[in-house]
């Protein structure tokens, strides 16, 4: 019994220590951000790795999600004779929830895991260590540009997800199922508010971007410098990011849309 309490306490302390390390780490990363203004080319390279290479999976998933959403909603709405509000339903679900959340989960799987593996491997092969010996701070030179690129990419990717998803919904709803094109767009416009829905959705994606990239770069930097350590860290990035995105989505949704 006492042993069980002791083990629980130890585990709790380990989690706290990790959280502390992660916080100290991110503060060092943030301290390294101003330097990037003078060397923005470092960020551009990472925007390519983190953002551009994620476009394909985001666009394809968004198209599929939008089409399925439209198809499913259509048959339910038709039972109530209100299939005109299809556009509104698709747009609101995408803009408020599915866009930021699904884009976040995909981003964690595509870009987050790649970031962790890359930084972890650089650590395992002593590249970070040798950089230190060349009097270059790897947190500023390697981690900070990747962090900034992740935070900048996420809202853009989430916006793309929502926009492409709505187009997918339009293709199926209007093109295939025969909903009136005018009603589709006008009811959407009438009921989607720019500030309450779109800006809040973007705000969500910014928060997700910070959290996912933070987890990814920290896990890479904190990984055990062995092949097994790096693969475990990569797995943890995906799992922890997914949990964090879902948990924060709940909190943010309650804060943003709970008041009505």
């Amino acid at each position, binding site marked *: 019994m006492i042993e069980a309490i002791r083990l629980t306490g130890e585990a709790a302390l380990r989690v706290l220590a990790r959280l502390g390390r992660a916080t100290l780490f991110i503060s060092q990363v943030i301290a390294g951000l101003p330097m990037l203004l003078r060397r923005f080319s470092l960020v551009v390279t990472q925007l390519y790795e983190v953002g551009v290479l994620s476009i394909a999976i985001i666009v394809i998933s968004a198209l599929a999600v939008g089409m399925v959403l439209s198809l499913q909603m259509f048959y339910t709405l038709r039972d109530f004779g209100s299939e005109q509000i299809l556009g509104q339903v698709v747009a609101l679900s995408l803009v408020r929830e599915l866009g930021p959340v699904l884009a976040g989960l995909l981003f964690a799987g595509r870009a987050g895991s790649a970031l962790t593996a890359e930084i972890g491997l*650089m650590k395992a*092969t002593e*590249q970070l260590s*040798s950089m230190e*010996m060349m*009097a*270059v*701070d790897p947190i500023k030179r390697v981690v900070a540009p990747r962090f900034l690129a992740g935070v900048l990419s996420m809202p853009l990717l989430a916006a793309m997800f929502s926009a492409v998803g709505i187009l997918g919904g339009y293709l199926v709803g209007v093109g295939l199922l025969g909903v009136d094109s005018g009603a589709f767009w006008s009811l959407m416009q009438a009921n989607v508010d720019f500030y309450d829905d779109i800006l809040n959705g973007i705000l969500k994606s910014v928060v997700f971007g910070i959290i996912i990239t933070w987890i990814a770069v920290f896990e890479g930097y904190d990984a055990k410098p062995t092949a097994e350590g790096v693969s475990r860290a990569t797995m943890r990035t995906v799992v922890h990011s997914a949990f964090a995105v879902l948990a924060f989505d709940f909190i943010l949704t309650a804060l943003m849309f709970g008041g009505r």
Partner: protein
Amino acid sequence: MSSDSILTIKNLQFSYGARIIADGMDIDIERGKITTIMGPSGTGKTTLLRMIGGQVRPHAGEVRYEGKNIPDLNKDALLAARKSMGLLFQASALFTGLSVFDNVAFPIREHTQLSEQMVSHLVLSKLEAVGLRGAAELMPGELSGGMARRVALARAIALDPRLMMYDEPFVGQDPITMSVITRLIKLLNDSLGMTSIIVSHDVHDAMAISDFVYLIAEGKVIASGTPEELRQSESPWARQFLRAEPDGPVSFQYPATDYQTDLFASVE
């Protein structure tokens, strides 16, 4: 203590838990000379280099480099000190995402504002020094282990360090590469006026080019002197190590409980 030493280590203490790396170690590195630190594997020679570079803090003692005590330096002063040091890692540690050229150019681009033309000039001259100018456009993945080590060497000397450290430069190399690297170390040391520290357990090649040798075991310097002096040494450690005898003060057996006790313990 020599009057012209670039690095003085005094009463160094360090351990990883129960594993003792340094226990009152004293080392003196003379400027312009090649000094080899030798010892059985697992005695923490790499950790010693990391303490010189300030990546690992000793628990006690001084690491005085050009008059400054490395463990006392703040971050900026430490970075400044490192700019005049070069360290050749055992694993080469080339940046896998960059070409050979960009790897060698990395420290130059980070620490100077030179034009691209000057950078290119410098990089090619360093690559020429290690005989790999033709490999400039290759990626690290396309290099053999020996070539990668030479590229790493070119990168380490890119900013003309005053102190160059080599971590096991001969490990895992074929005899030809080994002699190439031995010659390079000697050549660079003499032509660029560097001071070199080689950490190794390879007796012959290291002894051949060294001016001075330290033999360490169990966290202490157990013998030191010129290669010739060491060969004449009567110290049992030095004799065992230099003549590669399987048993002696360094035991073949990893410390364990009595063999018979172990055997019968499992029967019970």
